[in-house]
């Protein structure tokens, strides 16, 4: 039996249990051992089982619908799950109306024949720094089964031979652990995913697992957002809930929260889009960013940093007097900027025009430090 015949048989069994309507195909038994069949281009009724079978296996126009039905309803299953919604998103398949309330405008869905054509060459999507391609497992003998390739967006034009080819989702853990320079990435949605690898031929479940290791929980929260029921916990809720050493974070001043969000929750630092605010109806000043994944509450890294800032912000301000030339004063700003923008490693050894150059910094320290500290006097009011 061909793959199409298997799909048709299964489809007929389902139609006997009740009407089938899926992605444009509709098949219904009218109780008299005849069937009504329709797609956007075909409309037939009074079909006896044998005739119906011939129509379904014989008409080229119907094949994409049958294969599509079989792939999603039999092979994939998982009605209502985030996994299924994500895999449907990957190939621009229509999702149920309650799954697209939060969908981005212009995200047009494709019909089964359109997807059939596109899946032969592959449908590309981006998920953070991941490029994902959905394609048919076998173009020569297409049975509708999809496989997925997943690699770094920066490697879009790199030949497969030059990449480390992987097929076990767990291998994604290692990729997500360190950045290009081997530094640990405690925040999985930091935009520092390293390139140079490719997963090929993953099943749908394997793709979801792989994405889960690289960007944990992003699919689940995206799905909730698409359905319009993302549960956001604002800062005051998260802070109030903390105990132990994090108990202090609710003492962080309201104003400091703005600085925290500007420091941590911006696109240059995190691919999540901050949806949490100070409190419901009380927004923070910085924008939440344009990240692809919703961030529904302050993450553990932000909570840990907030603890530090809560303690630091309890200190009182003082006024210091110290001697600096104008250029030295500007150099302090250069140094802070370079560290804050992660630019330090890019400053060339001999580029003494850059205030954050290492020799410049060492010179300033040699000149203005006394006993390991900036030489300054506290001014008494």
């Amino acid at each position, binding site marked *: 039996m061909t793959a199409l015949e298997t799909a048709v048989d299964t489809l007929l069994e389902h139609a006997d249990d009740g009407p089938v309507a899926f992605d444009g195909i509709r098949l219904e038994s009218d109780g008299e051992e005849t069937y009504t069949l329709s797609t956007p281009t075909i409309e037939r009724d009074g079909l006896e089982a044998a005739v119906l079978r011939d129509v379904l296996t014989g008409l080229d126009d119907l094949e994409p619908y049958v294969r599509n039905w079989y792939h999603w309803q039999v092979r994939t299953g*998982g009605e209502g*799950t*985030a*996994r299924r919604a994500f895999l449907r998103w990957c190939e621009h398949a229509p999702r149920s109306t309650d799954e697209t309330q939060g969908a981005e405008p212009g995200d047009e869905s494709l019909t089964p024949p359109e997807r059939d054509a596109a899946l032969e060459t592959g449908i590309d999507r981006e998920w953070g720094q991941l490029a994902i391609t959905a394609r048919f497992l076998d173009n020569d003998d297409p049975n509708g089964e999809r496989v997925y390739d997943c690699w770094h967006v920066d490697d879009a034009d790199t030949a497969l031979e030059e990449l480390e080819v992987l097929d076990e989702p*767990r291998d994604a*853990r290692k990729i997500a*652990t*360190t950045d290009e320079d081997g530094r*640990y990435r*405690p*925040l*999985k949605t930091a935009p520092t995913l390293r390139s140079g690898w490719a997963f090929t031929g993953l099943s749908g479940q394997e793709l979801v697992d792989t994405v*889960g290791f690289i960007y*944990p*929980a992003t*699919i*689940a*929260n995206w799905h*909730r957002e698409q359905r319009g029921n993302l*549960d956001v916990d604002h800062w005051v809720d998260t802070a109030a*809930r903390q*105990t*132990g050493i994090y108990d202090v974070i609710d003492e962080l001043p309201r104003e400091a929260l703005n600085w925290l969000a500007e420091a941590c929750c911006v696109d240059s630092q995190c691919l999540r889009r901050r949806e949490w605010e100070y409190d419901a109806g009380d927004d923070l000043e910085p924008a939440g960013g344009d990240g692809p994944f919703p961030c*529904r*509450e302050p*993450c*553990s*890294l932000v909570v*840990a940093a907030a603890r530090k800032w809560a303690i630091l912000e309890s200190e009182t301000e003082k006024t210091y007097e110290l001697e600096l030339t104008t250029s030295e004063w500007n150099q302090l700003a250069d140094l802070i900027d370079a560290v804050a923008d992660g630019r330090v490693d890019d400053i060339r050894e001999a580029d003494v025009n850059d205030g954050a150059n290492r020799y410049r910094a060492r010179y300033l320290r040699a000149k203005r430090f006394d006993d390991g500290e900036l030489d300054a006097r506290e001014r008494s009011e």
Partner: protein
Amino acid sequence: MQALVIAAHGSHLNPDASDPTYAHADTVRETGAFDEVRETFWKEEPHFREVIRTLESEEIFVVPLFISEGYFTEQVIPRELRLEGWNPEKWDSDGTSATEVTLEVGDAEKTVHYCGPVGTHDSMTDVIVQRAETVTGDHDVGEGVGLAVVGHGTDRNENSAKAIEYHTERIRERDRFDAVQALFMDEEPEVDDVTEYFETDDIVVVPLFIADGYHTQEDIPEDMGLTDDYRLGWDVPSTVDGHRIWYAGAVGTEPLLADVLLERASDAGATLGDALERIRRDTTHNDAGAPESDSSHARTNGKPVTDS
């Protein structure tokens, strides 16, 4: 469908902290006993807060990869998982006897079987003994050998010492080692004085910690005098005051720990088929007594792997 969730501490600073969690999760995955197996962390992702929603299973068995009952198992994990109606009294535990409580969660339609931590399960006793076998390379280690089980001590919670003492007593009752002694980092009897507690030439030291890190790779080796500077590593065994000390590193890295995860879930009603037997077979020493552990010490002759 049923899922196993392994809830561990993790780290913002040290990528190795989650290695044992991943290793044991993979061992459980291989058995196929659960439809889904998921790691979750306090300091890594997916966070406790968001793990339940990543699962399709309706029945979820959560096992804390922690050594003792206390702050994390009683407050942090239940709160972050949004376990509805949780109260430590539901475990009805004396500090080492928590088994399971079945609750709903606040953000999904799931049933969570919240299990006691791995560290206080009876089968953890076997893991400690096997750790001793691994580090000595001797399947029958015991006679003429002393065993020290090392813990943190009081720390943030009183139960941490209880777990150490519980297993120490259970191993003592087996009459396998000449002597078995609980030692602590920050209270008496202290690990610094390890040699004073044993008359045997050979002493196996097993720290009851989940992951190798600062305590097991820096503090304890230096405190015991295995090395003056942890960065230089140490030998296994090392000679201290005329005793040979076989320092095992964190017990949590022993492959057999995966068995404890399954035992916990099984006690809580998970359907496991023959997974328990298979895990025991795959993670216990074969007849030749060759350890299959990926113990950092076995590989590096005592040098901490984090050191490279």
